[in-house]
């Protein structure tokens, strides 16, 4: 229950914030895989020098991790406004114009794209689930269908992120708070 007197705008901004928080945690889980992926590659390389082992499995695990990683990160990249924009005109516009263009872009471009991709990913993933798809190689890894389902996460969280942005724009709540990523000013 929202406390009495809270404007709908405030409620929308808080809903947007909640979505962004979920996206942030998804992104954090994805980002930690940078460490896992590096370790895996290192172990694979070193392991192959020392023991003569087949690395089909670890190579498959590498792209499994890589796929999970970028699927987890696309939504937060939009929240943090880190997707590339060609902003030669945009920089000269008023905030109001920018907001309108953003709303139009979300409705006309982002949502149709992400929705169509989500629907077809659903077909793609469920096909894989029903056949219990595993690696095409006999020595490969099982549970390929699990990895494929991260496509649903990618496009699903992207839609959520777009809706959160819409709510922010409607509530006039500005942009999502930025992560502190500065590694140089610490000392």
């Amino acid at each position, binding site marked *: 229950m929202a406390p009495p007197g809270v404007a709908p705008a405030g409620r929308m901004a808080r809903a947007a914030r909640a979505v962004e928080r979920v996206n942030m945690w998804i992104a954090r889980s994805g980002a930690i895989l940078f460490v896992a992926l590096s370790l895996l590659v290192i172990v694979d*390389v070193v392991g192959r020098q020392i023991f003569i082992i087949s690395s089909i499995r670890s190579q498959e695990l590498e792209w499994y991790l*890589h796929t999970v990683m970028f699927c987890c990160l696309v939504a937060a990249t939009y929240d943090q406004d880190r997707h590339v924009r060609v902003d030669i005109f945009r920089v000269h516009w008023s905030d109001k114009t920018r907001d309108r263009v953003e709303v139009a872009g979300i409705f006309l471009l982002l949502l149709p794209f992400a929705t169509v991709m989500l629907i077809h990913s659903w077909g*793609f993933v469920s096909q894989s689930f029903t056949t219990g798809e595993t690696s095409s190689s006999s020595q490969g890894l099982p549970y390929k269908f699990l990895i494929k389902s991260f496509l649903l996460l990618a496009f699903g969280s992207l839609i959520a992120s777009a809706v959160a942005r819409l709510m922010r724009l409607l509530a006039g709540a500005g942009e999502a708070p930025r992560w502190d990523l500065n590694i*140089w000013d610490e000392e």
Partner: protein
Amino acid sequence: MTWAMDLLPLLMFVTLFLLIFSGFPVAFVLGGVGVIFGFVGMGFGFFSWIEFFATVTRIWGGVAENLTLIAIPLFIFMGSILDSSGVANDLLLLLKRLLRRMPGGLGIAVVVMGTVLAATTGIVGASVTLMTLLAYPVLVRSHYPSSVAGGVIAASGTLGILLPPSVMLIVLANTFAIPVGNLFLGAVLPGLLLSLAYALFMMLLGLMGKVGRPGASVSSAPSFPGDNDEDGFPRGLWLVVLRGLVAPVVLIAFVLGSIFTGVATPTEAAGMGVLGAVLVALVNGKLRVAAVWKSCLSSGLICGMIFMIFMGAAVFSYVFRSLGGDDAVADVVQSFGLEGWHIIVLMMIVVFIMGCFLDWIEITLIIVPIFMPLLAGVDLFPGMDQTSFLVWLAICLSVNLQTSFITPPFGFSLFFVRGAAGPSLATAAIYRGIIPFVVLQLLVLALVLMVPEMVLWLPDKYLN
């Protein structure tokens, strides 16, 4: 109905171009225009709903199950960790010390710094920002006009996209289906030639008295506390700095060496590079869990950006092709009777013009594939095998695409310099300052186009 068939691909391309200027994220414009024109095509009966399913399969096969692309996040991560270990700072100190008496010495120091950062970190945004923060105030204090200072930083910081290990070369290798190692090795000479050209230009400006005064920079810079030499540097400084610098350079030599000699795949080399970067940070006393975690997050956002464009571009290209876009381009080219060199030159001009507005990822993923079918009949150098031809072409494109970072009005590096330098650097000044570097770059591009040996000499010598 046939008019629609002919017109749709053209209309699709024009729509893409116009909507990109709305400033909405390029990845979503690509995907959105793809989906919308898929719907339009369905209205005319040229496209079917189920074909969108094929785009998902395409994304899966081309982006997810793709072993080459795994090297991208790893190289970005390696660069980010090296960045946080303070390589750039040490480098600038050392170079200022070494080049203090040379005309245009400080400018040359920036060029050398850009070249080393290019090979070690290779993240253009980070290199340019860092170099602006470190070197721009020093340059301006040493009587470098703000336009020249901004120009040399933007141009040198952008070398990272060309010099190996480079994410752009990995993506191009993937597009052309050629080995990454050949491209890495092929890019070495043109990349070094560029940085040599920049350095000579700075020296020329110095000799003409247009920039700085030898030694002026150093004596006017704040001194270091403690026991200093006559130029205001602490004694023994160069030893400390060298120690901090040798490690990353050796690391990159190992990473590239292991790729060139075929010991490791680019992905394996990148993974070992991450390990090496962590060790370098450890040796420099700069290894912090918080910094590594921030490197994970910021590398993650870069990957989210790159791979979203991959997905958007996959949808756009699929629909474009399905609507007959490739044939339309081929028809136009054939109707003008273009062949051989004409096609290559046309490609270079198109990429250069596109580069003023777009950046390398979209160009590599959208424009280059459109030209691919046209290349089949091109035989410019009798006796050259297909791989060598594609390596040469890919490097020509890389040099051209590097220019896209610094061509006004939309050049990423220019924005980074402007953003980091603050209001003291006017947009007009940076546009003016970058022009000589764009010209130098085009000269090198012309040279690489005319002398393929510049690209192929190293790969032929070491890989075949």
